[in-house]
């Protein structure tokens, strides 16, 4: 009960802000008689969502699959890369600029090339998502690994701990909060990256649905897609936050403990 009340108290400002925003939007559209194809009212967007619901699961599923697989691939590559960069200062110095460079490649230029190389299947989309999401994860994990407590490392070493034991019991747990910071950023980008990669060519997905809606001037459907993309991104973000709490119970608990004092 206490937690429920706490939840309501913490979420109330956000929820009421959103509600007021939606009401202002609805009223503005009605007062100025803004036409549907310029800016649809929230009520119309909800109506369209229910009316077109039977068309959507296929597209939502495709985009989610691309975003999730790409994100997982991005994380895997990022962890391996972070480990390599961490063990050798030489590699760190030589590869860091290349990593940075990889983030400056415009997706809009690379996505059509990926399709020429890998075809119209799911692979090029997964690669685009991985390319976008791996960078924040690498950067934050490397930083986390680099900044672990020297005294703790010395302590474990002096007790006869091997390289792996130091890594496993001191450095990796220390880097976990950094990892999750990177993951949260990556999660918010992944769905958007999947949608953009679909624009270059696909047979289903929210990006394709968006193109079709735009070509028939259905602004209400465009907004439905916007809402769905936001919801999917938020969902993925919340999953990452939840996993962070499960994997780092000490962080969450100490937080509570401080509050009780």
């Amino acid at each position, binding site marked *: 009960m206490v937690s429920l009340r706490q939840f309501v108290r913490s979420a109330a*400002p*956000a929820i009421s*802000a959103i509600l*007021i*925003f939606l009401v*202002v*939007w609805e009223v*503005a559209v009605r*007062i*100025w008689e*803004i*036409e*549907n*194809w*310029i*800016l649809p009212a929230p009520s119309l967007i909800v109506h369209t969502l229910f009316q077109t619901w039977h068309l959507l699961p296929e597209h939502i599923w495709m985009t989610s699959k691309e975003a999730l697989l790409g994100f997982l691939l991005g994380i895997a590559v990022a962890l391996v890369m972070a480990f390599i960069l961490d063990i050798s200062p030489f590699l760190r110095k030589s590869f860091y600029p290349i990593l940075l460079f990889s983030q400056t490649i415009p997706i809009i230029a690379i996505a*059509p090339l990926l*399709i*020429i190389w890998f*075809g*119209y*299947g799911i692979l090029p989309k997964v690669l685009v998502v991985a390319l976008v999401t791996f960078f924040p994860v690498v950067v934050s994990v490397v930083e986390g690994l680099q900044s672990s407590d020297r005294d703790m490392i010395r302590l474990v070493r002096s007790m006869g701990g091997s390289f792996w034991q130091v890594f496993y019991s001191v450095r990796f747990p220390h880097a976990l909060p950094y990892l999750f910071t990177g993951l949260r950023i990556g999660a918010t980008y992944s769905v958007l990256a999947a949608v953009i990669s679909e*624009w*270059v*060519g*696909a*047979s289903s997905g929210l990006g*394709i649905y968006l*193109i*079709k809606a*735009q*070509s*028939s*001037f*259905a602004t209400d459907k465009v907004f439905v897609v916007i809402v769905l993309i936001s919801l999917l991104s938020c969902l993925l973000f919340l999953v990452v936050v939840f996993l962070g709490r499960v994997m780092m119970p000490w962080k969450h608990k100490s937080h509570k403990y401080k509050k009780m004092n």
Partner: protein
Amino acid sequence: MLKKVSTFLLLIIMLVLVGCNQVEESSQGEEVETEIESEAGGEVQVESSELVEATFMLDWVPNTNHTGIYVAKEKGFFEEEGIDLTIIEPAMEGAVPIVAAGQADFGIGSQTGVTIARSKDIPVVSIAAVIQEHTSGFASPVEKEIASPEDFEGKTYGGFGGAEEEAILNTVLNQHQVDPSTVENVIVGSADFFANTKRDIDFQWIFYGWTGIEAEVRGEDINMIYLKDIDPVFNYYSPVIFSSDAVIEEKPELVEKFVRAVSKGYEFAIEQPEEAAEMLIAATPETDEELIRASQNWLSPRYQGGAEKWGIQSEDIWDNFSSWMLEAGLIETEVSTEEAMTNKFLP
């Protein structure tokens, strides 16, 4: 908390701006009207001193469908009519919503786009047909052995993502006893036909005057199945030049002058394809020159075709295709041809 409040305020401001913009637009329209009235009084002065600014929005990268516009600009036909024309290349969704919202005065697109727009109360009107005959169809490299619609079965189609294409493709498939579910539809957007058909795609919807000619220039053999040969109902106009209800009502003389200049441009391109091609090449140096020259030679005689003058649109073609679109479920409400197109601005 402060952040939330400020975000919220920002969003409100955005909404108010959208609202204001609408109000402003209508008042702008009034201003223009009064300007025009005064123009009528002192016509000579205005003509000699000031050019009226107008914007024209393309549907794709500049190509031979647009030659007449570039010729008219290059030869000064717009200036002769007192128009200072700016040509804008489009975003992905094309020119219709932008012209309808008053952000551009004229645009180019397909008859289908105008009809779909009208069915949703988006106020655009077609004012000229660029080409008399419909030149698009389904193309594939000869080695794919797709000679007729029956051969589409089990193949992969590369679509451009247009609203009408799935309905048209499915109609064609059903007419030829092919189950539409056996044809995979991949939206490839504007990706290159030649690169696509070497990979996963078997056939694509192309305009012969551009991609078909490109195949000729490259020496690649393709099979071309014209839409108009499959069913005469598909002989609709593509592209057409359109404007909005607001521009037509508030500045009819601008529309008339614009169409007169554009007509002169296309007539020049019909009579002198070589010279017209060079003008388009000068305007779009990124595009393959040889392709433009070959395409211009192919397209120039087709602009006017057998019609009495360039740009004229037949009401029958609009009637027939609109009712087909209604039957096919592409539009939900009937669109009257009278509202969707007009020949009255043609010289």
